[in-house]
């Protein structure tokens, strides 16, 4: 390049500039803009998802209790893989949310029922995010999203730094007080991998909870999603949850 004279340089520069200009004209035509993401289960086999119908939940708390039994979660009221919240909206103003012992022992009687406008129960569990901030933040690779879509914790590798617990916008993680590692709802991975239902789904009396295969368009879960309007929690966070809520009120946090 050193001994380029002026003419050669101008020739080179103009050809390059022309090529670049043509590229900008051609590329918008070549690549149509895509305003949606491909589903993560394309090509993969099973891909687990979950749906909760808020209109069916009666707040009996059996799901939370069965989860603790099935998964050997400490019984104290500070560690939950799943829990049920009660929302009470009042007129003229007032939003009360409670979850005494995760809903396992029921809820206290409603005060001043004449001021209540809406009240309902909301079960909570791992949101099965497609872009899980917990996985992103784990410094050592102890938490990960399995190939079939479940976010899991490697108990033998977790160092207990608690960063994943900070990163989860939904508060579904906790530090196991005995094992000193992060713990969370695993969708009863040990059960669903054997064709069983998660413990919470199993014991729910009204069928408010449903798990299923998102990659199969004919699974009950896929059919439910295709025929109902649903919402996810905190969509502005960009976590892309695979936990969907039917009949969810705006006030649900």
């Amino acid at each position, binding site marked *: 390049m050193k001994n380029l004279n002026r003419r050669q340089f101008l020739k080179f520069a103009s050809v390059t500039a022309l090529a670049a200009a043509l590229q900008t004209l051609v590329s918008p035509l070549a690549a149509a803009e895509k305003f949606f993401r491909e589903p993560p289960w394309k090509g993969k086999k099973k891909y687990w998802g979950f749906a909760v119908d808020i209109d069916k939940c009666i707040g009996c708390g059996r799901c939370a209790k069965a989860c603790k039994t099935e998964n050997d979660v400490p019984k104290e009221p500070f560690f939950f893989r799943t829990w049920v919240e009660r929302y009470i909206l009042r007129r003229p103003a007032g939003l009360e949310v409670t979850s005494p012992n995760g809903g396992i022992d029921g809820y206290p009687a409603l005060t001043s029922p004449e001021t209540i406008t809406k009240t309902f129960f909301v079960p909570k569990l791992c949101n099965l995010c497609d872009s899980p901030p917990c996985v992103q933040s784990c410094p050592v*690779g102890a938490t990960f999203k399995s190939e079939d879509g479940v976010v899991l914790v490697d108990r033998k*590798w977790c160092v207990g730094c608690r960063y994943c*617990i900070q990163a989860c916008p939904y508060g579904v993680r906790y530090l196991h007080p005995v094992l000193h590692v992060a713990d969370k709802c695993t969708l009863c991975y040990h059960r669903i991998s054997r064709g069983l239902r998660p413990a919470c789904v199993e014991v729910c009396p009204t069928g408010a909870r449903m798990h299923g295969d998102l990659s199969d368009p004919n699974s009950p879960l896929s059919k439910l999603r295709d025929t109902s309007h649903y919402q996810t929690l905190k969509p502005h966070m960009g976590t892309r949850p695979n936990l969907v809520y039917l009949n969810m009120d705006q006030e649900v*946090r």
Partner: protein
Amino acid sequence: MDTIQMLYEALPKVAGYIYPNELELQWSVLIVLYPYITGLVAGAFILASLERVFNVTEVKPTYRLSLLVALAFLLVAPIPLNLHLGHPERGFEIFFTPNKTSAMAMFGFVYLWYLLAVLLLEIWLDYRKDIVLWSQCEPFWPKRMVYKLMTLGVSNISERSLSIDDKLGRAITVIGLPSAVLLHGYVGFIFGSVKANPWWSTPLMPVIFLFSAMASGIAGVLLIYMGLCKFRKVLIDIKCVDTIGKYLLSAIVVAFSLEMLELIQMAYEAEEHFDIITLLIEGRLFISMICIQILMGSVTPMLLLGSAQVFRFSEMTRKVIYGLSATLSLIGILAMRWNVVIGGQFFSKSLLGFTTYKLELIGREGALVGAAILVLPFLILAGLLYLLPPWDHCSPTAADRSSK
């Protein structure tokens, strides 16, 4: 006290609604101390680099001291991190399987890089001539053995070798500056990148952390320098502390402006989380933030240091102002770390309630352990000052980088 016991006691103190798993604060006072300590490291190093790279000759008397202060605090930095882990014995994993999407994973290599390739190497290169001489003239034989070890078996201190050291040292300081920025900046990013927490999530967080770190490091070295001069009954170089005072003022002004910008913007935009954060600042964080961090730790030192710039005070008054401002800003910056780390965990991610934190006295994450962690660097510094005095030692041709 047992964790479960503490949680039962905390349960009735919850205000509003928190997610059931949020009763227990995840990060305790140990995680408040870690950014504080790495901040002191970064700040002390930047003060040292002022002389080396930017040729601010007035601060020469504190050059070697700054490096030793940085090293003393850097050695203590991993301790609070490891102590708070659920499995401290697995701490090595961060070196062997760091997750490249995790801000926290950066700790392993940024720390090692900064300790080995920047700080230790720079200190060694700067002291090498003295180390070689001390390895020959030191009368106390165990100390002489240590010096001999530190020479790495080479006793050549010819002009040329020393000029190589000088050039290399300068290059390392130049690399060291962004390394120091990274060492503390990544800590800010650890918090700033947590989108789930609106008190933490901001692009300004690494910058705020960095400038308040610089303020704390400069204040720390200033106090240590003045304290050591008094202890050694040596005159304080007034030009030196005047210059350091100016840099301290600048650092505090920038840090304060960024912190205020953060709050003003948050108040102006008034997003969904604004209500709970208002309650946080007016309630649980009122004393530690408004009173200690802002009024006592930022505004007062700015006024004091600013007045020393505007008015002509006597040397004695100026020294008192510097000492007082440095102390207040060190307390204020510790409060800032508390307000960020603990404050961010007080309110629920449901934005509907608060939990509580009781700093225990004893226990792995208690106040006594915290105090020990803050005292330990000074003990290490004493050891370093004994081994590598920044001032004259037995050798008559001690390096001319020493202070008066």
